């Protein structure tokens, strides 16, 4: 991968572990590609710093600043020492000419994120918290490979209450509470790093009924 980036050396930015790359709310005019190290994306909500994502080499962040200088929607911190490539509107053309594949990858990321955000919006629109949690499972199911046997309604997800809480826009403790009640009703089984949904069609019916009454 590194040889791809030779031409872009002059866009290199290095940050030490713990340093802020950009702050939420500051006007954004550049986006970044991680060459080495890890970057943590956080948001300060009330009195808590919430980790939204941890990004690895080859990943982008800040790309929403690409075409419009709107405020940053999160803070990016170097989790380890990092080497970044910094692109802005001025040198974007150079990137496009030198490596259109990178730009095409950004386009793919945008496509995926638009969908994720739309889907997340649908989840958040549900008023009942248990319905939101169920809908998160439906979303995860939509994005995973279908089982070979179409009548098989059991689904295993490699996910955690933290992830689900994030998607459902609820606190982790509330999420655990909902998951426990699902478990008591034998609708899910929770184990380390894994959650099994016994009958995904049951969740689908549940969410559908709540979505209808909602709109």
């Amino acid at each position: 991968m590194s040889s791809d980036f030779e031409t872009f050396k002059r866009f290199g930015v290095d940050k030490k572990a713990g340093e802020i790359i950009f702050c939420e709310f500051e006007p954004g005019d550049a986006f970044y590609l991680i060459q080495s190290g890890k970057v943590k994306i956080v948001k300060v909500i009330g009195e808590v710093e919430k980790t939204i994502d941890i990004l690895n080499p080859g990943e982008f962040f800040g790309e929403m600043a690409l075409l419009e200088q709107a405020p940053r929607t999160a803070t990016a911190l170097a989790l380890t020492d990092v080497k970044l490539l910094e692109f802005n509107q001025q040198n974007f053309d150079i990137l496009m000419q030198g490596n259109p594949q990178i730009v095409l990858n950004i386009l793919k990321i945008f496509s995926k994120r638009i969908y994720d955000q739309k889907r997340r919006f649908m989840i958040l629109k549900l008023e009942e918290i248990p319905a939101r949690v169920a809908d998160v499972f439906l979303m995860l199911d939509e994005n995973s490979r279908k089982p070979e046997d179409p009548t098989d309604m059991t689904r295993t997800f490699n996910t955690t209450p933290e992830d689900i809480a994030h998607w459902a826009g609820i606190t982790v403790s509330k999420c655990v509470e909902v998951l426990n009640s699902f478990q008591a009703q034998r609708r899910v089984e929770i184990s380390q790093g894994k959650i099994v949904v016994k009958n995904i069609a049951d969740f689908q019916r549940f969410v559908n009924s709540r979505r209808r009454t909602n709109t």
Partner: protein
Amino acid sequence: MPKSITYKANSVIYFQGDQSDRIFILKSGKVLLKTQDIETGKEITEIINTGEFFGVKSALGRYIRDETCISISDAEVLAFTVPEFEQLALSNTRIIMKMLKVFSNQLRRIHHKVENMLRKGEEVDAETGLYKVGDYYFNNRQFAQAAFALSRYLTYYPQGKHATQATLRLQEAERYAASGNPGSKGTPQQARPSAGAMQGMTGTGASRSSGGAKEYYEAVGLISQEKYQEALNILYKIISNNSDPENMAKAEFEVGRCLTHLKKFDEAIRHFTALIQKYPKHPDLKEALFLIGKSYEGKGDKPWARSFYEKVISLSQEDEPTAIRAKKAMQSLTGGAV
């Protein structure tokens, strides 16, 4: 090879919920996309005209079709697989640019909707938001991060409603950040306090009364002797002591000059860029632009160096010393390039 497919009027090209990796371009006829507004659930339709792409997002993002697609007249389409589409786009990058604009816009809008949903009315304006980020790190004793956020706040909102508070906190954060890890080498944001604030701690009272003038001349003296690092230490002290505004502005400019001489070109460029944003009417503006050009040149970036020299010349009278130097620099650039 992309496949040509014809549809009779009122055929479904794909259903919402389908999974597919096909991207289409409409060759003739009319096609309709049907989806629901995510907020109201109302049906939205969009007509696709000849020459337009459809089915792009779901294919590229590898998710299910977001809309149902129907031909409303006899229609002919070209169907691309994702790799075929990529090939086309890479040889015609205008397609990528155009789609990027559309998608980034959509992303921004949906993101905003989600944010509103999560924040439920407690919308914060960017100015207060940025200040609060600094405030949060300050309260959690992450002083380097606090200093970063607060200095950004002051860069963007020098007259802002939290400016006084931000200035005070920034000084404190910088002092703590410096004393917390005196050996740290960090970025300019971190290095700045550790170089200056440590020495500044005892001298704060004295230097404030002199407004930093004496120190400033001392620094300029050191610069003329090419003792840039020593000059920098004094300059940072002037800045972190929040001296007289005029001396602060002059000191900030000299910091950039030192960085350029020390061949810390990236830092110099960043510093001057921030300086210009902060003091758009800085008396040394042209010189700052010239030094940005020099720094780019130092980095071997001739196109950028040239554009800054051009900027200096366009802003100056012909016989101004800065303009003359910029012209000379341009000539030597071209000389080097041939």
